[in-house]
């Protein structure tokens, strides 16, 4: 099991993500710098962490989505390698076109930083197989641009295809249909605003994030 965390200038949850991956796999991930052009050989799980890549210049995730390493990430995703984008990582994945939609400024204009209740919508994906459909879980969010937007046709399609992985169970940021996490059409790319890596230890105040990593990494062991 070889995991990788992509690190951009301004990433700030890369080490938290590394702790979560090492907790589950027993092996520290490769920390891959944005300017690198290739992933380590045999990488079989990629995480794009939270933070403020490139200072959120232009749009959140916009610059990171055009960085050299993203071509390798896109190639790996196309080969079926699981890719998890959390918070800024979700913004990067939408900007890169690996996930549909866009993440806009929170409807309330405030930075929201608190643990929020989520509903697991799809428990069939490789990331969410450790949960049951409809299960209520609590995961922290910390973002300013988490207001998910997609046109009506796209929303209908992703809902119809079961690609909404998580939904907010209470209002957080104005997201269309309260969408908190979205899968790509193949189900191997997940973007989500909540931070599962911040809920893997009782000392975090909750461990509801742990099963995401166990499921996503366990199926590969």
């Amino acid at each position, binding site marked *: 099991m070889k995991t990788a965390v992509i690190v951009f200038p301004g990433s700030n949850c890369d080490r938290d993500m590394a702790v979560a991956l090492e907790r589950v796999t027993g092996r520290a991930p490769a920390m891959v710098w944005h300017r690198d052009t290739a992933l380590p050989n045999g990488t079989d799980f990629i995480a794009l962490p939270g933070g403020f890549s490139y200072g959120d210049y232009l749009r959140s995730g*916009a610059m990171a989505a055009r960085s050299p390493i993203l071509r390798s990430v896109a190639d790996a995703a196309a080969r079926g390698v699981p890719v998890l984008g959390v918070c800024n990582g979700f913004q990067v994945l939408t900007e890169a076109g690996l996930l549909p939609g866009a993440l806009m400024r929170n409807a309330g204009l405030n930075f929201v930083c608190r643990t929020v209740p989520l509903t697991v919508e799809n428990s069939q994906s490789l990331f969410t197989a450790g949960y049951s459909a409809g299960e209520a879980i609590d995961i922290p969010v910390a973002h300013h641009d988490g207001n998910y*937007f997609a046109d009506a046709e796209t929303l209908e399609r992703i809902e119809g295809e079961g690609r909404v992985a998580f939904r907010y169970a209470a209002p957080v940021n104005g997201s269309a249909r309260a969408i908190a996490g979205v899968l790509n059409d193949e189900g191997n790319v997940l973007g989500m605003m909540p931070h599962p890596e911040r809920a893997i230890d009782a000392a975090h105040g909750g461990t509801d994030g742990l099963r995401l990593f166990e499921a996503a990494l366990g199926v590969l062991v």
Partner: protein
Amino acid sequence: MKVQVYVTLKPGVLDPQGKAIHHALEGLGFSGVSDVRAGRFIELDVADDVSDADLDAMCAKLLANTVIENYRIERA
């Protein structure tokens, strides 16, 4: 040559920042403003042989997110 790019939210996309600006204008006592939409202005200094197609590609690939934004290009 200078090229101006105006990036604006598509009609129908909610603009919370524009709403907040509108609210602040009203708070300052300005009346008669029915709506405010905030956008982004980008000025490029480009060689004369940069084509319209190149400029369009720059906008579509990076300067605007066409999921939510429209763009308009003006050559000075």
